């Protein structure tokens, strides 16, 4: 049965995040009571997820390398690592190194309940690995090609492992040609445990209701959404059941795709899309 390989330090998993850094990512997006540029919302979500993964893989002796993680930005004339600080320029990085090397740890103020019915303002430490960038076009085809190279090498060196998961977060149409064949090429790589998983998230432009994890393209509004849907892999069964446990309606053909995502569905997408097999 595919997508059941154990994830361990000898059999690590692989996550590749593709982050759209085109100019339109500077457009505003609702974020709680305020609005933030989309790029900022996405960067926050990725940074939070890296913390999340690190905590999830933390053991007595420290963070274990259950995963290797790449964060690839694509925007103005450029496709490459979006890590900053010590990790700048690196592609797939073992999780323990990620955990130990955020570019910086910010103190952010946050209102939390004081336990007596009121709210109190406190600061929380927030590790940052990538900053928001918004500039130029959307070279999605090249980004998928970049991921293809990483993935090809990964499956060659981890033939029995859990297949790499590629999560693409974008807000617009590809500006360097139809990405379909690049996506098909990317998803045609496989380990013995199954083909590579490619999940796509389209960040909201309009603020309309998000369409999360659809199982057919009929409910999608336009050809662009349909294209992204077709590029997305069907959710493996354990992700399906996890999505269901999180209140999503899912079926056999549900795909890892969110259209018109708001801030909540970005977090959900990352949460569900990075559920590899159970960790111990």
């Amino acid at each position, binding site marked *: 049965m595919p997508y059941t390989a154990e994830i361990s*330090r*000898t059999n690590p998993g692989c996550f590749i995040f593709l982050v759209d850094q085109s100019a339109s990512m500077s457009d505003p997006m609702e974020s709680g009571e305020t609005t933030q540029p989309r790029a900022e919302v996405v960067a926050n979500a990725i940074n939070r997820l890296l913390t999340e993964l690190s*905590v999830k893989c933390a053991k007595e002796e420290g963070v274990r390398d259950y995963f290797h993680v790449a964060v690839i930005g694509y925007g103005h004339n450029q496709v490459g690592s979006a890590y900053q600080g010590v990790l700048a320029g690196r592609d797939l990085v073992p999780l323990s190194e990620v955990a130990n090397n955020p570019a910086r740890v910010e103190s952010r103020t946050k209102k939390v309940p004081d336990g007596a019915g009121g709210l109190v303002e406190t600061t929380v430490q927030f590790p940052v690995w990538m900053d928001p960038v918004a500039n130029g076009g959307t070279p999605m085809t090249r980004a998928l090609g970049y991921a293809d190279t990483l993935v090809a090498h990964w499956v060659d060196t981890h033939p029995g492992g859990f297949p790499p998961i590629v999560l693409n977060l974008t807000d617009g149409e590809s500006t360097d040609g139809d990405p379909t064949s690049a996506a098909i090429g990317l998803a045609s790589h496989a380990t013995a*445990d199954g083909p590579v998983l490619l999940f796509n998230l389209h960040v909201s432009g309009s603020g309309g209701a998000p369409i999360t994890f659809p199982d057919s393209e009929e409910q999608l509004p336009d050809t662009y959404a349909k294209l992204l849907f077709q590029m997305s892999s069907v959710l493996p069964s354990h992700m399906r059941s996890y999505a269901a446990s999180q209140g999503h309606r899912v079926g056999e053909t549900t795909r890892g795709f969110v259209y018109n995502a708001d801030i909540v569905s970005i977090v959900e997408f990352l*949460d569900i899309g990075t559920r590899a097999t159970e960790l*111990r």
Partner: protein
Amino acid sequence: MAVPPGGGPGPGPGSGTGSARKFPTGANYAEALQHPELCFRDPDLKFGAVQQSPVLGPKAISGNFASVFSVTARSGQRYALKCFTRDSATLGRRYSAISSALGGLGGTGKALSQPWPVGFDFLEQGVLVGREWYPAVKMTWIQGTGLIPWIERNLGDPSALHTLADNFLAMTADLERNGIAHGDLQHGNLLVAAGGTFRLVDYDGMYVPALRGEQATENGHRNYQSPSRTAADFGPAMDRFSAWTIELALLAVATDPGLWTQLHDRHGEFLILSEPDFKDPATSLAWPVLLTHPDRGVRELAGRVKGFLGEPASGLPPLTVDGVRIPGQRTGGGTGGSGRAGGPGAGLGGGRPTVTSWTPAGSGAASGTGPGPGPGATPSGVPAWMAGRLGTQAPAPKPVRQPAAGTGTRAGFGKRGTGDLVAAVGALLSNSTPGALVLAAAQPVDVFPAAQGVALLTSAALIGLGRRRRPEHRAARKRVRELKRRARELADPASTYERLEKEIRVLDDALAKDNTASDQRIQALQLELRDGQARITMELNRRTDQAKQQLAGLAAKERRRLEKALEPAVRAHVQEKLRRTSIEEARSLSNMGSKMVQALQSAGIRTAADFIGVDLSHNPSVVFLVRPGGQRVRVPGIGEARANVLDVWRQSLEHRARLSAPTTVPAAAQAQIKADIVVLRRTHKAEIKQAEGEAQQKKTALQRRITDERTRLTGQRQQRAMDTQRRRAELLQRQKQLAGAEVERGRVVSELGVARDEVWGELGVGSYVRFLLIGR
């Protein structure tokens, strides 16, 4: 170990409905715990200090369902706080039942083997995250070592490992006796405290009698479970498979630490066996190593555990002392005096960490009495099972003259053999023959003495050679050499001791280096097998994907072909119906009439079959009817409106005709289609089968190659270990003999004298010549 009254199924905040709610993630908790004064209600925690990680704030230890944080209260008491990341409506109730069950343990008359239960409080309002309280379990922090690091630290101490195995067995017996099962027995939940006793942690999946009839919320670590375990196995027997595999691992490693280095993967989440060994024992590299291990105990226990693989998980017998002991084996602790007498289970090796079946014949090392060399003397490079034996010295030889080999009771030569006859005959001939030759050939006189001299020398050499070839002589000479060496050593015992020490170290280092190399090679082989198998599977998937898709599409294909086969009959039927409908019938249509019908007839349209549509594309005012052949005809009087009416009329006729058309394909055609599909199905299946067969062959070949190589390596390793052991025992013996060097030297020197006398006396040339002549 109390559960507060609120620990029952009472309506905690947000948990009243029983429906799953989203729990915080590990990182959510880590963020909340940045402010213990805000996120806790429990006073110990509220004013406590949360342990921090180097970079990411509060340090978590995460599992599948929870993250654990360390909080030290003001009092100095340290707690482990378990924060749940998945909802379970029954959490509070379960913990309450577990708390009562564990609290009642160790009462009168049934004391626990060791203090393995860990105290906890279930806090319904444990941690405030966001605006909600979430439950948490507050436990006393256990000072202990994880099972894997503990084993690695104690690999060189077989006695400690045996004690650990005994303690593990005793703990599972405690659980069994009380009808309790942990649910997830695995290295991560087994902490080893001082004295090699266990502390059992993580009670989320625990079964206690009060939980009878519930379902498991988890099925335990994949590397410790029977392939047949399901949630329905939740009950007192659910630990048995894990218990047996853990006991097997502990005893095997205690018996032969080399098994750890060979079978445990440095980063592996298992001891020596893992899920693939259970699910696919046929391709496992571990089973053959265990099942053919030189130690009978390891072999038999491994065989027993392997036998459990096909059995229902909860039908296995409990782990008992008798279960792990070899039938007919001496109970442990009796003869060894090794300091672990009276352990609850003698286990393998009869209580002594030895591998008796490996003893090279006549090495004399297996009958020892001592507990082995002191801890300092156990070199890291030597397997502990050997270290245990190497200290057991053969008794020091008594300072009496030892009989030369082959004689039985007295020194001197034994029975004459072929070599002696050759020597005797040769000596005789070489003395007489030259004389005879000289006489016959009338050689010059002065030649004679020279020839005679050569002959004498030759016969002397032959006698000497014959004597040297005698086993008695050789043994005696060897003995003299040995005694000389010892006399030399005894003359300067200190430097000799050091030299021997160095030799032992060199030996140990060499063995350790060899072992490391072979460990690496074995690990590499395991990887090679795993990756090789994966690559074969990938290749297979690539080859069969298309065939599988085709196969899946065959039903649809059959349907399409049947429809297609039906089409001519349907068309013919429709044509026939249209042909039988005279254009006269169109007369009654609105705005038509006989004039129009006549016009149509004169344009050649006599039945509904004589036109197939209208063409308005040229010019709205110029309307064509389309004939079946595609030609367009203009019919005077037929404008757009009438043309459309005609077209609708014709379509409705066609529609009606289709309804009455045949629906089944003629039997012959149908049979043909079905036969074609069968052929296609067979072809695709054959393709898949062939690819699978080839993949299987490749896998088998790979498996065989790796297994052979592995067997060879293991054999080599054992041989090397044995050789080293023998050499080492020898050196140790010599070292030991340095004690009391003065007295010993005197003894050796006098013995040397005796031995020399023997070589030149009883075994001297004179004696040999006499022996040649008279056989005594």
